[in-house]
């Protein structure tokens, strides 16, 4: 919202020594956020009124003319493209060197061979409006040489851009008067009162329009006035210019003055053409289902019984508090009007405006809970402004003023020491009183307490509890005048977030294992998840997605992560990457689950068989050890539960504490092809949530073995698809003295037919004594015999 400093100055005196920058900073620090400000009209000091003396045709261009003007200090010939003026007219003249808005400097130029020195200006070039239809024609009585800043002093102004969000809670700041009140309190200046004078809005005779409010629950107050003998014409220049400066387009005197009052007091109004009100009666009621209103914005609003309307005998003509119907307002021919200023239920206005998708200057204000005491004053101000163009207007009868809900007084009892304690700063009670009074609060001392009555324009929403008064005192006193103070706080028991520590350890191990962390969006779409055959039960779907590909919560990290791998393969094939994040769904009991997952991948150039898998396994063993996950079994994937995209052989499920908590897998050749992945890629998906809740393996000290171990190596011939672990288990079963069986190497050869040679290292050790050579020999023989019993022979040397 744009706020004009001149407009504020209509109501309060601002020290002229104060710089605009300081003023804006004060508003920012004590009232609300000013996003920026613009000083307007300074160039008008250099633009002079000039009299057109001679107009000649340009010798070389039909559309241009050569104009000689007298600008008070001399005469000048200017090439001009406009044609809306005649000799003797007074027009604005910018001489060589003058800088106009947009940093446009006037220079001596030649136009089609004729020298032109200076420029005759249109309204847009001077920043009055965006009108470029012709030169701005000044009052004919203007003396040539008068600066335009003298003719239009109001144009030298400061326009501040207020952040609307920062005044959501301040209905009183949706008009200039509210800002005047704030500055008055801050600078301790009196604010020009706007007293209500009912007589000024009361006329002879009867009203032209009757009003009935049916939906009284939604209309705390409805005020209106019939006015006859009016003519529609343009508003005074100053009003038009002011409206333009704060971003509103002038339309006609009646429309402009309702806007002007809205910007002054914050109270939106509507001017009806009284003769167009069918049955001469307005009825305020809920709409019938399916009612349509063609709005001023040429948009059809479809309403239902939740929406409030103003109707006449022909039906709804206005969507109350939001927008007027196209036929209800004033027209060029209007000669009598009904001026309405109402107070509507804010929630209902907001709902209607959201439903019909129309947020107007009016609805934006009504939804903030406007002061109901403002309606009659708004009418009174409107009549004052109307008299500027219609001095002979006739007010018909008394104003309509239907009050359905009397506003209750709001009184807050507060102890000054509560304010000081909450702010952490001792402030005199007299200062506290002075600040509150200057903001319009009525303060009465009542023993140790203050009885503070909240003014009507602050009590609808903003101020209701003692803490609200703390803010009022704090912001006017200046929060930055409160010195920082260390809180007194007891020493407390440290509380750790174990899950964060667990995450942090995982991140640290993964990045030490040379993985890069990425963060993907948790939002996805079914199409993305479908590709991996992920079930759609319990999926959390958004009602209002911003993008089609982000309309639900991911139930798996894999699809987006796959994209990460794919896109990075375009840069290089060798990388390791991981992500730690949540997946989301609703379980069968209806509870929403957000477990954490860790997903990792290795991409590398194809070298040996299973290269990426083994590298990933190597890193995961490190991770699992650091995370103190106890015994982990690496088991083949179950053929039935294996996903299509997973490789039949290069895949494993990870089991600990009898529970599967993850899988490591390459993609099937078919999926590698479908997804466009290349070379050697392997993924790991771990249920991080489950891992966190596992009982952690404790690292306890055990003394080193007392007696020496004897190591012994064997190369065993086994069928090609034999798992090392099945051989290991046979060897372990031989004797308790077998302490360790380790994989050494595998050797394939065509000579072996469908077999391979598996070399293992076996460690024998007793906890009681050093093993004798005969005992070792006997153990070795038992191992060979046990293998032979299962059909596995030794490789012949």
């Amino acid at each position, binding site marked *: 919202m744009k706020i004009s400093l001149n407009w504020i100055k209509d109501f309060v005196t601002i020290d002229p020594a104060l710089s605009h920058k300081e003023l804006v900073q004060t508003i920012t620090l004590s009232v609300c*956020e000013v996003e920026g400000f613009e000083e307007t009209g300074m160039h008008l000091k250099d633009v002079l009124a000039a009299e057109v003396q001679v107009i000649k045709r340009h010798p070389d261009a039909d559309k241009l003319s050569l104009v000689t003007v007298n600008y008070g200090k001399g005469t000048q010939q200017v090439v001009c493209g406009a044609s809306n003026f005649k000799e003797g007219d007074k027009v604005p003249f910018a001489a060589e060197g003058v800088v106009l808005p947009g940093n446009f400097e006037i220079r001596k130029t030649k136009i089609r061979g004729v020298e032109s020195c200076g420029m005759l200006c249109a309204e847009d070039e001077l920043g009055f409006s965006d009108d470029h239809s012709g030169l701005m024609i000044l009052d004919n009585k203007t003396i040539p040489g008068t600066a335009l800043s003298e003719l239009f002093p109001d144009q030298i102004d400061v326009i501040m851009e207020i952040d609307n969000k920062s005044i959501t809670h301040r209905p009183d700041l949706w008009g200039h008067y509210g800002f005047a009140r704030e500055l008055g309190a801050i600078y301790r200046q009196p604010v020009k009162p706007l007293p209500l004078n009912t007589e000024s809005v009361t006329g002879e005779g009867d009203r032209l329009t009757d009003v009935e409010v049916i939906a009284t629950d939604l209309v705390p107050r409805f005020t209106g006035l019939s006015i006859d003998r009016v003519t529609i014409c343009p508003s005074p220049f100053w009003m038009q210019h002011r409206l333009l400066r704060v971003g509103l387009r002038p339309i006609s005197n009646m429309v402009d003055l309702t806007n002007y009052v809205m910007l002054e007091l914050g109270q939106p109004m509507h001017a009806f053409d009284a003769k167009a009100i069918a049955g001469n009666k307005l009825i305020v009621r809920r709409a019938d289902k399916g009612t349509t209103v063609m709005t001023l914005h040429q948009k059809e609003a479809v309403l239902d019984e939740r929406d409030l309307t103003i109707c006449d005998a022909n039906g709804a003509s206005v969507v109350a508090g939001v927008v007027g119907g196209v036929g209800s307002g004033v027209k060029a021919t209007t000669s009598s009007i009904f001026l309405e200023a109402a107070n509507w239920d804010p929630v209902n206005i*907001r709902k209607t405006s959201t439903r019909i998708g129309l947020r107007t200057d009016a609805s934006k204000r009504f939804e903030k809970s406007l002061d109901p005491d403002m309606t009659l004053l708004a009418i009174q101000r409107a009549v004052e402004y109307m008299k500027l163009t219609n001095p002979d207007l006739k007010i018909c009868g008394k104003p309509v003023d239907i009050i359905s809900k009397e506003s209750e007084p709001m009184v807050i009892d507060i102890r000054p020491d509560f304010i000081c304690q909450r702010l952490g700063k001792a402030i005199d009670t007299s200062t506290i009183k002075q600040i509150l009074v200057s903001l319009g609060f009525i303060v009465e001392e009542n023993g140790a307490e203050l009885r503070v009555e909240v003014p009507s324009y602050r009590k609808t929403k903003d101020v209701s509890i003692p803490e609200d008064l703390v803010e009022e005192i704090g912001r006017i006193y200046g929060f930055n005048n409160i010195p920082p103070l260390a809180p007194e706080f007891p020493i407390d028991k440290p509380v750790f977030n174990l899950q964060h520590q667990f995450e942090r350890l995982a991140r640290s191990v993964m990045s030490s294992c040379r993985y890069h962390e990425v963060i993907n*969006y948790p939002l996805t779409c079914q199409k993305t998840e479908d590709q991996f055959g992920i079930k759609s039960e319990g999926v959390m779907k*958004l009602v209002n997605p911003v993008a089609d590909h982000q309309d639900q919560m991911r139930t798996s990290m894999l699809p987006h992560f796959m994209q990460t791998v794919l896109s990075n393969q375009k840069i290089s094939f060798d990388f390791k*990457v991981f992500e730690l994040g949540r997946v989301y769904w609703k379980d069968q009991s209806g509870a929403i689950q957000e477990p954490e997952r860790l997903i990792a991948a290795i991409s590398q150039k194809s070298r040996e068989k299973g290269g990426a898998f083994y590298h990933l396994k190597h890193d995961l063993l490190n991770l699992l050890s650091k995370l103190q996950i106890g015994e982990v079994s690496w088991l083949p994937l179950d053929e039935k539960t294996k996903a299509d995209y997973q490789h039949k052989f290069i895949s494993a499920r990870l089991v600990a504490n009898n529970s599967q908590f993850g899988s490591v897998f390459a993609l099937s050749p078919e999926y590698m092809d479908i997804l466009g992945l290349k070379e050697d890629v392997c993924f790991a998906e771990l249920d991080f949530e489950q891992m966190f809740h596992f009982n952690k393996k404790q690292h306890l000290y055990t003394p080193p073995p007392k007696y020496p171990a004897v190591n012994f190596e064997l190369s065993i011939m086994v069928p090609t698809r034999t798992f090392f672990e099945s051989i290991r288990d046979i060897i372990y079963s031989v004797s308790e003295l077998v302490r360790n069986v380790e994989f050494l190497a595998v050797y394939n050869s065509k000579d072996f037919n469908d077999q391979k040679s598996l070399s293992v290292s076996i460690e024998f050790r007793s906890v009681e004594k050093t093993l004798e050579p005969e005992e070792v020999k006997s153990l070795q023989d038992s191992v060979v015999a046990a293998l032979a019993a299962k059909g596995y022979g030794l490789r012949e040397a």
Partner: protein
Amino acid sequence: MIMEKVFQALEQEFHKILKTIEQVRDLETVKTRFLGKKGKLTSLMKQLKDVSNEERAEIGKKINRLKSVFQDSIDERKSDLKKSEFNQKMEEEWIDITIDPFKSDTGSTHPLSLMQQRLEDIFMAMGFAVLDGPHIETEYYNFEALNIPSHHPARDMHDTFYFEDGHLLRTQTSPIQIRGMEKMRPPFKIIGPGKVFRCERTDASHDSVFHQFEGMMVDRDISVANLIYFLKTMLGEIFESDVEVRLRPGYFPFVEPGFELDMRCLLCKGKGCRFCKHVGWIELLGCGMVHPNVLRAGGIDPKEFSGFAFGMGIDRLAMMKYDITDIRPLHGGNLNFARVFSIS
């Protein structure tokens, strides 16, 4: 005296042969030849039985001397040869230390994780507990309990993603305040970092998914002065320098009074630069004294306790710290972006 000559000849022979030896293992042959059981010196000793007693003693002495000369010389030669063999081996082991044949990639932690960890460290050192909350929240926790009733215009500030069942994606980390209060009794100090969601279009400085950091402290007699002190201390730690801050009124329904906190631009020291958009101040966070309705929603009596709360964007802090000018790469998954953060 013949013996004398024999000894001399033997000694000469020994040294001549020893000189020709170039391998440690060949020294053994020399040793056997001169000092072994069937060696030259032994056979000389055997001849001693033919000489007189006086001579024998004299010759015996010489033989022993020769024995030790031979042994010492062999040992010395052995040590020299070993040294030279080691030197040779070393020479052969020359490598190019300027190459990285493994093409090491360093691995990295995401800048948002780094920032969040740093913040958690600071707050934990100040005695705060770190809490979490669900991303999928209810209207109650995200709005109502935070003093934002339905159809309150303040909800406009939160472009909220809704689910079909009425749940929503939290638009702020503030629900963690309520969940924290439900579990804890004052005095307490908590922080709640995490993801938040707003349904708005993405551009260089806005994303629909971003990260916030919520803090809250509740005790008896907590004041605005405490809030200023605390935030100044905390920001000094985050930015690792003395910071100047200012408060201005800001509207957040869950605090009263509510503030926007600005920090004096660290780059230009307040003179105005591109970074602070030429205002000299950087809008950093929202904060305020916890609204009595919010305390009540958390089961805390606002007559007995007061507190302050604040919230700030982790993404923004990370972007400031690492000079990231566009928010989008944070979720881009490009490892060339990640490699910049190959620290910690």
